[in-house]
């Protein structure tokens, strides 16, 4: 009974049950008197003129793609950082990671020159 991940499993059950039960209990205790005015979308009192789910700026997609790129890089860097010692990596590991980051930096500077980080344009 001392498996390190057992508390996490139990906590996960607990977290879900806690949130769901709180919502359900509150739903049973609270008043519920909806009307058309109350349920209308909040737009500072002005009448709603379009559906909110319109088009999204392409900037967000670019940020999402760049995030993926660098997050994968981070995923590779973590095991490398843990094994930064004589037994496993040695100098070879250092040279390897320099090349690895250099390749990614080329893409990073390309994105910079292509103004992926500019929000005004």
């Amino acid at each position, binding site marked *: *009974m*001392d498996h*390190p*991940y*057992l*508390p*996490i499993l*139990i*906590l*996960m059950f*607990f*977290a*879900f049950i*806690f*949130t*769901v039960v*709180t*919502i359900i209990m*509150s*739903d049973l*205790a*609270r*008043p*519920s008197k*909806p009307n058309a005015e*109350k*349920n*209308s*979308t*909040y*737009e*500072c009192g002005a009448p709603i003129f379009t*559906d*909110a*789910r319109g088009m999204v700026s392409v900037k*967000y997609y670019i*940020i*999402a793609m760049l*995030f993926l790129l*660098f*997050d994968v890089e*981070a995923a590779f*860097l*973590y095991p490398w*950082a*843990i094994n*930064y*010692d*004589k037994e496993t*990596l*040695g*100098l070879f*590991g*250092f040279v390897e990671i*320099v090349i690895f980051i250099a390749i990614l*930096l080329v893409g990073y500077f390309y994105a910079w020159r292509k103004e*992926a*980080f*500019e*929000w005004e344009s």
Partner: protein
Amino acid sequence: MEVILGIAIILIKILTIFGVTMFIAGWTTWVERKIIGDMQFRVGVERTGPYGLMQPMADGLKLFFKESIVPDGCDRVTYELAPVLALVPAIMSIAIVPFAGSADSFKIFGQTPFIAANINIGILFLFAWSSLSPYGMIFAGWSSNNKYSLLGALRSAALVISYEIPFGFSIIGILMIVGSLNLIDIVNAQGSYHWFIYRQPVAALVFFISIVAETNRPPFDLSEAESELVAGYFTEYAGMRFSLFFLGEYIMLFVISSMFTVFFLGGWHGPFISYDVVNNTWVQAIPGIGILWFVIKSYFIVFVYMWLRASLPRIRYDQMMSFCWKVLLPLSILNIFTTALLNLDKL
């Protein structure tokens, strides 16, 4: 029987840590209102109980009995799912907060005390769960069918994923020095006074700026910029559903502050804790003193958060994004290289 006893003990431990975190999260709202009140020459909350100490309780009860409004045109499934997805990652991340250390042999019924789950990938676990928080935001913003919500959700999701990169990169230097992802190992590697804040100052700065942005706190609270976006992605939420977002935010505030303590301020180490060379362990001269140091240090970081909120105006969105990508990211990569070069003798 053995199994039931084991699970019961784990449950007691989890409930204790959960209760403590809930208490801290709830009363952090009181601390915040008092501190910001003082900084702005106001009184702050004072009506409910002595010094307004019962205010979080009153707020919680009020929100519990408030009507929950479901707006027209909302997507019901994602609308109900969003508060759960906002709170569960926050609760899960308390599993790895090491409140105090103990000798490896010291176990209560086979359980490591003071930490819910002493796993060897502690920090990866935190990253994994904190990466789930954009889902809560996006679900809330998209399902509400409100322009403010959607804009706030897009902004905060883009912000959180952008700052996650310097956040993750900044601690790689520490991982290189320590050689472990386990948070207890990281704390013990710092000893009493060799804190990483002065062995890795650049990483500490990058990490601190990133955590302020990660938790959507001022001056980086663009997702809930009251003056332009009403309340950001949870504009259309009311009652208990709103308070779950709120609770998740404050739990995350404490957990992330405690992570700064773990990585840069030496965790639970401090006076009255010394290294026992014979048994190769850290010994607390006064039992439980480690918890005190840990909470004091973490709460100092929480205080800095509030200090920032009272002092600084909100930063423009485009400035924030370009600051993250053009300054923090190169700085954190440079920090990795510098640490690697300085520790070349390890190879």
